[in-house]
């Protein structure tokens, strides 16, 4: 993890960073998100947060807890209840020279903002031939497994990945959450930052106290293995790692796990490099199967590494149905058992 300096506003940061590189805090993923926001609000006075209930309430998941007290109600803004308003004014704020970080309360409530996101945030740079750009971040919790009401559990990352001009990042660990979010805030283009709420508080890990970036567009190998690669992201890393351990024990299958971390732009190099070593791929995601990001990964492998392929590429995904209410979500989500089955099928092909 390298610490980089963003544009002018953060120039001072580097000294601090270098002085304290060894210090860490033990944080959950959602605390690491807050830490990234705190860090960037401190270092860059252009950064501001806007969203529903992000102020005094500190966000419904506490991702902005106490930030309004630390900074001000002008920089941590409770908006009216209007997602198109949040993203639309966010675009204007970004065009004016600020660095807005918008929180949409759940991915399932991002759709009123879709027009602003895809028609404008994503395209102002190309429409204006680089004259205008929209350096903003749109954070949203996503994914299932928390027994939430309807519309609170879906994974629709493909909507955003499909839109040229948007970047899409998904952390799966506290350290990545902080580094990716800082990179997203410093990025000159709009970044949709998806937060896997199932693992918001699932575990803690050491997170550097200083500012640092995890570069957008770089996947990470979370587990090395020789027989088959499982490509996944977000909360599905956990069942995948369990599945990998289980098949290692029972069947002696050596699984590599690639955490995509950024879904747009995809890290083709890491995807292909891993596949060239294992020759087998399983892709796991919570989103529905049809036209999910898994399809893009599978097609990329076919295009780039066909001659290395030893078995059909398998996808373990949500089904092509509306996300069910919580009584059935354990059947809908890719559980370890389903990932293991796919691994075994792929290896025994």
């Amino acid at each position, binding site marked *: 993890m390298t610490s980089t300096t963003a544009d002018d506003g953060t120039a001072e940061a580097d000294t601090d960073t270098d002085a304290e590189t060894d210090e860490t805090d033990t944080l959950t993923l959602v605390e690491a998100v807050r830490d990234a926001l705190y860090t960037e609000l401190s270092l860059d006075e252009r950064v501001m947060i806007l969203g529903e209930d992000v102020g005094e309430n500190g966000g419904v998941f506490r991702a902005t807890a106490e930030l309004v007290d630390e900074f001000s109600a002008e920089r941590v803004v*409770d908006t009216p209840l209007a997602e198109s308003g949040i993203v639309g004014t966010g675009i204007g704020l970004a065009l004016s020279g600020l660095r807005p970080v918008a929180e949409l309360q759940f991915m399932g409530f991002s759709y009123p903002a879709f027009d602003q996101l895809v028609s404008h945030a994503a395209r102002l740079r190309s429409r204006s031939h680089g004259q205008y750009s929209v350096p903003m971040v749109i954070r949203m919790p996503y994914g299932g497994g928390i027994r939430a*009401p309807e519309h609170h559990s879906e994974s629709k990352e493909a909507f955003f990945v499909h839109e040229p001009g948007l970047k899409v990042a998904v952390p799966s660990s506290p350290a990545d959450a902080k580094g990716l979010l800082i990179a997203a805030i410093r990025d000159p283009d709009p970044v949709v930052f998806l937060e896997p709420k199932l693992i918001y508080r699932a575990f803690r890990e050491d997170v550097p106290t200083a500012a640092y970036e995890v570069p957008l567009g770089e996947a990470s190998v979370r587990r090395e293995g020789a027989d088959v690669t499982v490509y996944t992201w977000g909360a599905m890393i956990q069942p995948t790692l*369990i599945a990998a351990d289980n098949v290692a024990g029972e069947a002696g299958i050596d699984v590599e796990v690639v955490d995509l971390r950024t879904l747009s732009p995809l890290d083709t190099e890491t995807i292909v490099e891993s596949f060239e070593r294992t020759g087998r791929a399983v892709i796991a995601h919570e989103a529905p199967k049809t036209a999910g990001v898994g399809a893009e990964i599978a097609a990329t492998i076919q295009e780039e590494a066909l001659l290395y392929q030893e078995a059909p590429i398998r996808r373990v995904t949500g*089904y092509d149905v*509306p996300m069910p209410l919580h009584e*059935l979500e354990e*059947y*809908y989500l890719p*559980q370890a058992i389903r990932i293991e089955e796919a691994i075994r099928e792929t290896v025994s092909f």
Partner: protein
Amino acid sequence: MSTQNDAEQYGHSATTYGDDKPIRILDTDGTVLPDAEVPDLSADELVSMYEDIKLARRFDQRAISLQRQGRIATYAPMTGQEGAQVATSYALDDQDWLFPTYREHAAKYVHGMELESLLKPLCGHRDGYAIPDGVPIMPEYIPIATQIPQATGMAWGNRLQGNPERAALCHFGDGATSEGDFHEGLNFAGVFDVPVVFVCNNNQWAISVPRDHQTASETIAQKAAAYGIEGIRVDGLDPLAMYSVTSAALQKAKNPAEDDRRPTLIESVQYRYGAHTTADDPSAYRDEDEANAWREKDPLDRLQNYLTATDILDDELEAEIDDRIESRLTDAVETVENATTDPDSMFDHVYAELPDRLRNQRDRLRALREKYGDDAFSEVLE
């Protein structure tokens, strides 16, 4: 949100439409205000309304405690708002359409849904959304304000098909008025002059955001003027005022006078006594004194005082009502807790006909369950 000087703040007549003062019939102690006209409801109807409000309150307490015990998932309480919910549904004709949010449990129940169906989605069963055949209620709307243009469309469709006497009543909160769908729904309603009644349950809060931060408009009712339709403020903790105003608005929607537009925006001025949902902690953003001031005007107490003073309600009847309520709640909870859902059912009703691709997915899940057993599926989600 101020509660000082009630007499100044509330109008006394159910007919002063267009006035900024919320209309009130029952004073906070349950006495009828001078000049106010008590709606034409029989003693039985009044008792039944009272029983439904009381049931709603007990339902709320029960649901909150079930949630605390982990027996149901996130629940949106309605205490303080149930008087308005029950009263607006009493104003509906059987054939009128109801568009509820996640908070209108009592409004749905009164218009014809079973108690069990209110609890089932909270237990994760999708069939709880299923409405009894012929009962014109939409499943609850969670994405804020999205129901508003749809209610307009329903009412428009009824009118286009020669049935303007079938109105739609659409609930939403104060926060919802900030969404684009609020504007679009009310604008269409005015332009096409459709038989719809919009009920904004202004409970002063949208989660942690107070009403005065939601809009710079002084009232929500005044927004109606921009769409060329009527806006009325009502004391939403006065069930009789809510009933009168909603009935009149529905009447106008169905049979407008020559110069009237059919749609009305009713701002029901009320308060969310409790948390936004069981996942919310209001102490993070509001002062309990404020909630306590509103509790002084409680709809259940007011109606109880009125009915006792008019000799409609006595201890014996009250005890009967309590017994009925408790046994219905107990039965409903038991039924729901014994409910099960077949994993196959998530593939049902996605389309009128199950596509092959989906059938294959369903069959693969079946095969896996047979091979490994259902326990294997609960591993990761604890």
